[in-house]
């Protein structure tokens, strides 16, 4: 049932990544989860090994791979049962904005560092009062001479503490149409008036440094505008397809991983004698297989540069809801041991619960599906 074809090179890449996860990541997960952050040095190690931005062209320091490399990164992170090192936010969500909309100068300035791990990126869209309703954002960017002056607060920003560069959505307060008032800006860490909050305490993704970002009369040069003025919304919408797709890819690998662990555990306990357990596993296995075929098909279409907004929204909704349901159900089958953090599915349950909320809530996915399909 596999649709995606991985080359020898892809598989060699995955092997190297697998070893990296085994030696340099998995043994440290518990410590990082307590610290609420993954050290920046790990990003550099990832970069040195070619695991960051694996599909950037060679002229910007990349390895010239394709989206399947990103799929494999998601797969290995899921196998490690780890979301703290959310490199896909950097590699597959944020950096592509720069790659697609950056000027030659911006590309040369930032992309090589994004590949080496010297520049960790974040994207600032969500605000305390503006989540699903992105157009209601309050962060402003006002032109003043040769700069933009930014004021506002962003929240729930992944890589918020580690980030060296933020792609920030802000609007022109004079703009009448909110959809045409938003622009994207490149804000570097260390810019006066830009402060980061502490990592937020969350249900899961414990070592993913999610934080608030504060901008107070933060002045950036005009050349840090990304793309054209007032085009922010269009750019965000265009890039959300890949963002949502990678969520589906990750969710499906987490599903597979959880089911596999649960089957092994039940086998060891001799619990497969239970018909109820066997049916539950069969039902979950069926849903996961069907979901994965759909996910792989989406990846294939996406790589052909097809516009699959509706299908990607369907995928994001279905797979992130599925990963939550699978976690709930596996825990039920596991029983008492599932109530201990020692049980890996406990962490997956905590981690996966955010996926139906972030990258566009599943309620928004359903609105998109209905808008394009049933109106």
């Amino acid at each position, binding site marked *: 049932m596999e649709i995606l074809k991985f080359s020898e090179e892809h598989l060699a890449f995955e092997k190297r990544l697998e070893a990296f996860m085994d030696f340099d990541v998995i043994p440290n997960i518990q410590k990082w989860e307590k610290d609420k952050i993954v050290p920046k040095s790990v990003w550099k190690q990832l970069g040195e090994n070619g695991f960051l931005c694996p599909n950037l062209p060679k002229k910007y320091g990349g390895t010239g791979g394709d989206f399947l490399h990103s799929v494999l990164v998601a797969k290995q992170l899921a196998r490690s049962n780890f979301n703290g090192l959310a490199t896909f936010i950097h590699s597959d969500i944020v950096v592509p904005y720069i790659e697609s909309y950056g000027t030659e100068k911006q590309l040369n300035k930032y992309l090589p560092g994004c590949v080496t791990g010297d520049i960790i990126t974040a994207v600032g869209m969500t605000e305390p009062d503006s989540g699903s309703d992105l157009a*209601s954002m309050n962060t402003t960017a006002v032109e003043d001479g040769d700069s933009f002056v930014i004021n506002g607060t962003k929240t729930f920003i992944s890589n918020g503490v580690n980030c060296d560069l933020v792609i920030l959505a802000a609007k022109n307060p004079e703009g009448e149409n909110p959809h045409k008032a938003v622009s994207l800006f490149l804000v570097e860490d260390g810019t006066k008036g830009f402060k980061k909050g502490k990592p937020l*305490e*969350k249900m899961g993704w414990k070592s993913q440094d999610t934080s608030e970002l504060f901008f107070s009369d933060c002045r950036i040069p005009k050349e840090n505008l990304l793309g054209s003025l007032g085009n922010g919304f269009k750019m965000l919408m265009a890039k959300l397809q890949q963002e949502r797709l990678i969520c589906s890819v990750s969710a499906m690998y987490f599903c597979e991983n959880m089911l596999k662990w649960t089957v092994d555990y039940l086998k060891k306990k001799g619990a497969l004698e239970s018909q109820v357990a066997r049916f539950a596993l069969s039902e979950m296995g069926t849903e996961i297989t069907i979901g994965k075929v759909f996910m792989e098909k989406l990846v294939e279409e996406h790589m052909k540069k097809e516009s699959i907004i509706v299908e990607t929204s369907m995928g994001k909704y279905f797979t992130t809801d599925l990963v939550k349901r699978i976690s709930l159900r596996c825990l039920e089958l596991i029983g*008492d041991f599932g*109530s201990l953090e020692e049980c890996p599915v406990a962490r997956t349950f905590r981690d996966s619960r955010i996926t139906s909320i972030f990258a566009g809530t599943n309620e928004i996915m359903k609105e998109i599906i209905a808008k394009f399909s049933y109106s």
Partner: protein
Amino acid sequence: MELNLTRSQKEIQKAATTFAKGEFDKNLALNLDKEGKFPEEIWKKAAELGLIGIHIDGDNKLSLVDSVIVAQSLCAVDSGIGSSILSTTNGAELLFMDGDENFRAKYLEPLLTGDKICSLAYLESEKNLQSTNTRAYLQDGVVTLSGSKIYVINADAADYFIILCLISLKEEPSENLSLIVVDKNTDGINIRSLGEKLGFRMNPVANVDFSEAKIPAANILTFNCESKLKKYLAIDRILKASVAIGIAKGAFTRALEYTKLRKQFGKAIAGFQVTKHKFADMDTQIQSANLLTFQAAQNIENANFDELPSAQALLTASKAAVYVCDEAVQLMGGYGYMAEYDVERFYRDAKALEITYPSSSALKDIIASKVIGKVK
């Protein structure tokens, strides 16, 4: 919907809610959950007010509805603090039902006054109680106990355990299940922590090993306890269901407050049709669980210990709690995922309650055996 509570029940409800709102500090709850610590001071205050073990604080009649009300009220304000202070009397119904005056004075009273913590150690296998291998023999007025118990709640904090074991009068093994009270400072007890938990983190759990622990014969609570244990388990299911309903109510209230204030697309989220229907489903589930639980508690007050109502109450309540908390997290979006907004913690607690003994699957076994009867 309000159940027909008596005046004294309404007073208890009010007292418990007022106490919890005044004492359950939000930041304290977050820290205790994070550090896996027990809210000792609040527990003592709750006991002073008579909220701990309110159903076993009388002469001979279990006033279980009172405890249903207290558990719901406390857990609705804070799932973790509420459930953890109530857990200090874990197994104490057995002392109430079976203990003579000496037992009550020595082991039950200190629980009600907030001086001691008790923990029932009964599980040895995750599946059932039929696999008890902890054995004890009685000789010259001394019981020697050996074996291991798993998932013992508050094992570290407890002052004494009520142990389910097989006691033989001579050195020959007996197949009669019995209960014995064991002081924690008895030699031969080893407590092995099970580490961080998914939910109910204020109540650490541990495995407890007994190796030739010597206990005075006077501490034998019940010989041949099978029918007592069944009664106890029915009570326990009702108390757990009450905790679950409290958790669900707490998550419901928080989500409701949030969605009424939170505006997106120019409108409070509570005003969207899908949100409204979600709240309709959430409340319906809570009320269904509530009715079953009150009915089951009343049965027990009337000395009807039929297993069916309590099993159905807990099955419905724990499912309702997981469902309501899950929806609360979703409705509160990114905030729902943040510790500061409580519902993620309530959700973890609800899930832990649902999957730990007696799990939904075990409850369904009980229910099925009652509704189907024997199959040829």
